[in-house]
């Protein structure tokens, strides 16, 4: 299949690796790309803040050149993609504006072709199965956070190939490549690329929130499909670290770099050695095996909470177990309760000289965590009182046991 290729200004310079890897990925997957001859800037994002006609005319010229060839357009840059899609939408919907646009570009243009993002090309045009068939170097052990950003999935009227709140196309591609993408909350949050030059106070904070959430959710890297997101997350990561006094060291990849590498292309060939945050070593030294997923997000507080939850469920299980035990047969009620380590310890501290009582108490506590808790709390304040209460519990238990026996 053949597509017109609109790299856009960023891919010509600061995002050169996105350009290299998109072309490489296309050739590996059998997609022919023909660069739009004499393409110009799409005007994002300055034109639409300045002049509406200009903001539609600039992308329209590039699309019109491709339309003449009868080709759909691949625009890897999310901002170019968004402006091109908006242009198609307006030209199709607004006849009056369409006429003015044709006049401004001095060319016929009816938006009969369409612009595709790299995710659409990978998932829809090529297809996940076709990608899977080409994977020779699976990215096993990689745990990326798939970052879609704002312009790939919004607004739905223009884009609409994936869910605007919970997109999954990139996650699906990463799974096909053998990686294990993490679930996280900032996949469609804006990185603030349009603000970081003019209002770094605002932009850096947005970037910080994204990097932080990715790390907290256990990601070892971020994957993007936008040169502006990449610039913000990769090139400006050191500025973010300096501003907020943290260290992330989180490599940021383009989805096309990873497709190419998983299909056997060398990381150098697609420019992974040109990143700001070390990404080359990371991709060439993946653990190759799935680790156990991290138990809980980082932070001592979270860890404590998780421990408490684990304790509670353990107790719950014990309770459940004890109720599931078959009813003790008459006269042999000492048997089946599984002893809990904590219960044995507490019992030993309560009755250091009386082995029989230790056994009874341990059995009782294992069966009834509520009673154990009560005694343990008392133990911390007043040992004698705790011993008395425990003895009372044992007496009561013995009595009820005896009653049961006598009933039978």
């Amino acid at each position, binding site marked *: 299949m053949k597509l017109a290729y609109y790299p856009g*200004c*960023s891919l*010509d*310079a*600061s*995002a*050169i690796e996105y350009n290299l890897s998109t072309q490489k990925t296309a050739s590996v997957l059998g997609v022919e790309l023909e660069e739009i*001859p*004499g*393409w*110009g*800037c799409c*005007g994002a*994002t*300055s*034109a*639409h*803040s*300045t*002049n*509406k*006609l*200009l903001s*539609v*005319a*600039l992308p329209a*010229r590039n699309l019109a050149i491709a339309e003449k060839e009868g080709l759909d357009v691949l625009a890897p840059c999310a901002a170019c993609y968004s402006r091109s899609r908006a242009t198609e939408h307006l030209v199709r919907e607004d006849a009056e*504006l369409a006429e*003015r646009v044709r*006049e*401004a*570009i*001095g060319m016929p243009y009816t938006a009969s072709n369409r612009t595709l993002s790299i995710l659409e090309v990978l998932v829809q045009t090529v297809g996940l199965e076709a990608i899977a068939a080409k994977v020779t170097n699976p990215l096993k052990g990689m745990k990326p956070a798939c970052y879609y950003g*704002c*312009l790939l999935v*919004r*607004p*739905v009227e223009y884009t609409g190939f994936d869910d*605007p*709140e919970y997109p999954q196309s990139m996650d699906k591609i990463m799974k096909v490549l053998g990686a294990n993408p993490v679930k996280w909350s900032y996949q*469609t*949050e*804006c990185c*603030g*690329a*349009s*603000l970081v*030059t*003019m*209002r770094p*106070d*605002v932009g850096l*904070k*947005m970037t910080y*929130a994204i990097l932080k959430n990715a790390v907290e959710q256990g990601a070892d890297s971020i994957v993007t499909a936008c040169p502006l997101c990449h610039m913000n997350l990769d*090139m400006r990561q050191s500025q973010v670290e300096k501003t907020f006094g943290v260290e992330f060291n989180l490599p940021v990849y383009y989805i096309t770099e990873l497709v190419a590498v998983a299909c056997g292309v060398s990381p150098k060939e697609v420019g992974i050695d*040109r990143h*700001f945050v070390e990404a080359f070593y990371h991709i060439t030294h993946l653990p190759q095996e799935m680790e156990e997923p991290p138990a809980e997000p980082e932070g001592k507080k979270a860890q404590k909470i998780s421990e408490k939850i684990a304790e509670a469920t353990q107790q719950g299980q014990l309770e459940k177990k004890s109720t599931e035990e078959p009813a003790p047969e008459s006269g042999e009620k000492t048997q089946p309760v599984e002893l809990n380590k904590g219960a044995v310890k507490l019992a030993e501290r309560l009755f250091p000289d009386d082995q029989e009582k230790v056994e009874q108490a341990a059995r009782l506590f294992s069966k009834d965590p509520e009673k154990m808790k009560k005694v343990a709390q008392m133990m911390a304040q007043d040992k004698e009182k705790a011993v008395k209460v425990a003895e009372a519990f044992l007496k009561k238990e013995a009595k009820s046991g005896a009653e049961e026996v006598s009933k039978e």
Partner: protein
Amino acid sequence: MERVLVAPNPAKKEFIRRIERESGTEVSLCYQCGKCAAGCPVAFAMDYTPRQVIRLLQLELVDEALKAESIWICATCETCTARCPRGVDIASLMDAMRREALAQGVVTDKKVASFNQAFLNLVEKYGRVHEVELTLQFNLKTGQLFKDMDLGLPMFTRGKVHLLPAAVKGRQEVKNIFERVRQMGGDRS
């Protein structure tokens, strides 16, 4: 918000209609639920939240809305538009407001406007954006000469910078677009 008396004003009504036409949406649809403000990733830096900007327009407090810093802080991420339960295209409204503020010469955030102007000047000149010159021009215009200079050399050593702009084949055609848009009555579509 301070108290302001509201009286009908035809000029202001006309302004609202124009903004609505430009953005293809209606401010009266908004029932002030605040979902836009809740999801806005830059609301923390705004003087009026997106919901409040719309409220200003509903009340025809046009000058207050145009002078709001918020319209320049908006990153056009479209979260508000995607989530609005009433289908108000808030991001497009913000766009239209920026254009209107430029046309009326009431630009609260000069930095954003300077950046946009520098950006478009380069596109007109070369047909594409030349990142080095854009950074230099923006820094000159805003008087922050050494901003991001620490990134310059690493960019260069990574082969991510062209010192000179590329000679674009379609350069003249792009220039013509700027020229014709200007002739066609430019600033309003």
